[in-house]
């Protein structure tokens, strides 16, 4: 069944980023994931990064789409609808202008007075194209103006149509809404959008066939407001996060919108180094709690029956290990496969292929696996049907897979860096594949030690780059070209 993910605000975007990375590792099924991003701040750094991650995923996936090797790598098609902002096309992006506040003085003074009671002038006039500035009250008012019954309002129309079409074909799509409980956009959009979608489905008589799940991120990061920031200005205040959270949880307890709701948080919030009200500077580093967010989406999608309450915690306060990961066996196997492949591809295979481009005749003698996938040079050496390494198409595939590999490894590195001072993330030995400056390490000697938690017997059986390349060299009838090389190597990197 397909999954429709509604990502609200910057935190929602980061949860989606994690979902994309897990989908790349084959942790979702072959059914489509469709994403709708909701953010009044269309240039939000977190949103921008997630869209870049998605593009990298899609480019890589389309490059390898024709492979016939049965791996779960990138088996999930992921599409995104256009980003929805309530201010799209508007010149003035303030609460007051959105509701035509100025006209109330003449047309409806009582409504104008009510507006004054509910919102300060600062809140009324604040520019909201940077988001709702940590004020759910502002966001809720604006988000509630979404008219799902209006046929022309995109991308809602496409979203509803796609869901209805799947239902007509006898499928049972699921909707998963994710956002933060403590900020502005997520806190306001989450209940509002959830309620609007639920009501729409009920009006259409489809509610019983579509499960709605929700992921609420509790406060997991904090930041310091610079001293020079005007205290009268409208911006998110971290000291109010917990208060907002408490108020929101009371609301959700009373509102039966969701079939399953996931709450995730971390009692040691990560520090965000750079204060930002919004736009492209609001870009937080990936956090391990987002890995759990993606696993929550996976759990919601793949469980036959949704559970109303799901509890999870990690056993040791000072570390997060594989034992703390739900469905450990599958998650560990798939993530390990992806990390091993990504590292070997970008640190070893790509430099090799770049070296070989200029002198294939010599290179093929020192890289026996090469002539399995690419046309060799020389007399009587065959190679019919094999593409040339220097073909533009082949080079594009190599670079697209490389781009995805680097993106994935960096995300995994940041996940491991996010534990804070008193806690470590013990899934992979992340310093073995990414340097402090964010570059991929070129030394693959420690390849067998990438995965933490492999016992000594497992490590002894671990493949080395040499043995994996020897297996590549003896592949029987592999798919030709860079696609064949990548998918064969991905298959061999299975732990």
């Amino acid at each position: 069944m397909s999954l429709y993910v509604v990502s609200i605000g910057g935190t929602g975007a980061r949860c989606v980023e994690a979902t994309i990375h897990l989908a790349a590792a084959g942790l979702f099924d072959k059914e489509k994931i469709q994403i709708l991003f909701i953010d009044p701040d269309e240039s939000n750094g977190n949103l921008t990064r997630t869209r870049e991650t998605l593009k990298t995923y899609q480019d890589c996936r389309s490059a390898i789409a024709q492979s016939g090797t049965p791996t779960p790598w990138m088996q999930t098609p992921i599409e995104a609808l256009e980003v929805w902002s309530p201010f799209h096309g508007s010149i003035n992006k303030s609460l007051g202008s959105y509701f035509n506040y100025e006209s109330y003085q003449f047309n409806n003074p009582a409504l104008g007075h009510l507006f004054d009671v509910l919102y300060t002038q600062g809140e009324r006039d604040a520019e909201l194209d940077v988001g709702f500035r940590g004020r759910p009250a502002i966001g809720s008012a604006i988000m509630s103006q979404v008219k799902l019954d209006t046929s022309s309002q995109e991308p809602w129309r496409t979203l509803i149509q796609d869901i209805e079409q799947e239902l007509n074909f006898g499928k049972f799509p699921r909707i998963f809404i994710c956002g933060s409980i403590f900020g502005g956009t997520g806190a306001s959009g989450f209940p509002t959008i959830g309620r609007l979608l639920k009501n729409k489905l009920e009006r259409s008589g489809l509610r019983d066939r579509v499960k709605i799940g929700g992921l609420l991120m509790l406060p997991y990061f904090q930041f310091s407001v610079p001293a020079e920031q005007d205290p009268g200005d409208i911006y998110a205040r971290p000291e109010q996060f917990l208060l907002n959270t408490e108020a929101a949880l009371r609301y959700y307890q009373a509102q039966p919108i969701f079939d399953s709701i996931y709450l995730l948080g971390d009692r040691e919030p990560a520090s965000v180094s750079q204060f930002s009200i919004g736009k492209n500077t609001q870009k937080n580093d990936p956090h391990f709690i987002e890995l759990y967010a993606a696993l929550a989406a996976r759990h919601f999608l793949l469980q036959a029956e949704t559970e109303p309450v799901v509890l999870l915690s990690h056993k040791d306060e000072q570390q997060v290990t594989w034992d703390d990961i739900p469905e450990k066996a599958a998650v560990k196997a798939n993530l390990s496969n992806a990390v091993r492949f990504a590292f070997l591809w970008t640190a070893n295979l790509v430099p090799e292929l770049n070296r070989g481009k200029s002198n294939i005749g010599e290179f093929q003698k020192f890289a026996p696996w090469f002539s399995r996938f690419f046309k060799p040079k020389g007399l009587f050496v065959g190679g019919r049907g094999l593409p040339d390494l220097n073909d533009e198409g082949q080079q594009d595939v190599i670079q697209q897979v490389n781009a995805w590999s680097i993106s994935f490894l960096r995300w995994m590195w940041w996940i491991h860096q996010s534990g804070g001072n008193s806690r470590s993330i013990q899934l992979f030995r992340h310093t073995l594949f990414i340097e402090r400056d964010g570059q991929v390490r070129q030394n693959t000697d420690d390849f067998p030690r990438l995965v933490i938690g492999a016992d000594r017997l497992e490590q002894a059986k671990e493949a080395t780059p040499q043995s994996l390349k020897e297996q590549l060299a003896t592949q029987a009838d592999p798919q030709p070209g860079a696609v064949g090389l990548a998918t064969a190597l991905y298959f061999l990197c299975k732990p």
Partner: protein
Amino acid sequence: MVWDVIRILSVSIVGAIAMFLIQPWLYRSGILAITDVDVDNWIAEKYFSGAGIVFATALAATLIWYLIAVRTRITSSHEVSPLRLAWALLLFVPIIGIGVALFFFNGSNEALLSLALFYVLDIIVVYWFSTAISSPGLLKFVPPGSFTVRHLIGLK
């Protein structure tokens, strides 16, 4: 790895048959006539000793190469190219064996040229061809010409 060893053994056996059965027969039968010495005595006292040295040195070089290849840890192609030098240096072992065989175990001036040619052919078979088709793993194409040979005979 097992098949590599089988290939080394097979080629060595073929080489041994050529060196210790076929080549002597060519001299005994008169196809390669030598008249300055008694052929049977020459074969028994000189030829077999000389051929034995050439065969032993070629086989030893093959086995040393194989051990080097099996034990070498390789992660990328630029680590492979220096091993070509190792292979070439090992070639000197049977070449020196030929020198020793011809200098100390010739005994017939008329046989000198044919013997030299046979010994060269023998180390082409026992050393070059053997290593060309049995070098393991990522070093399989290091011996010169092995890429073409392996593709020609379907051992790529």
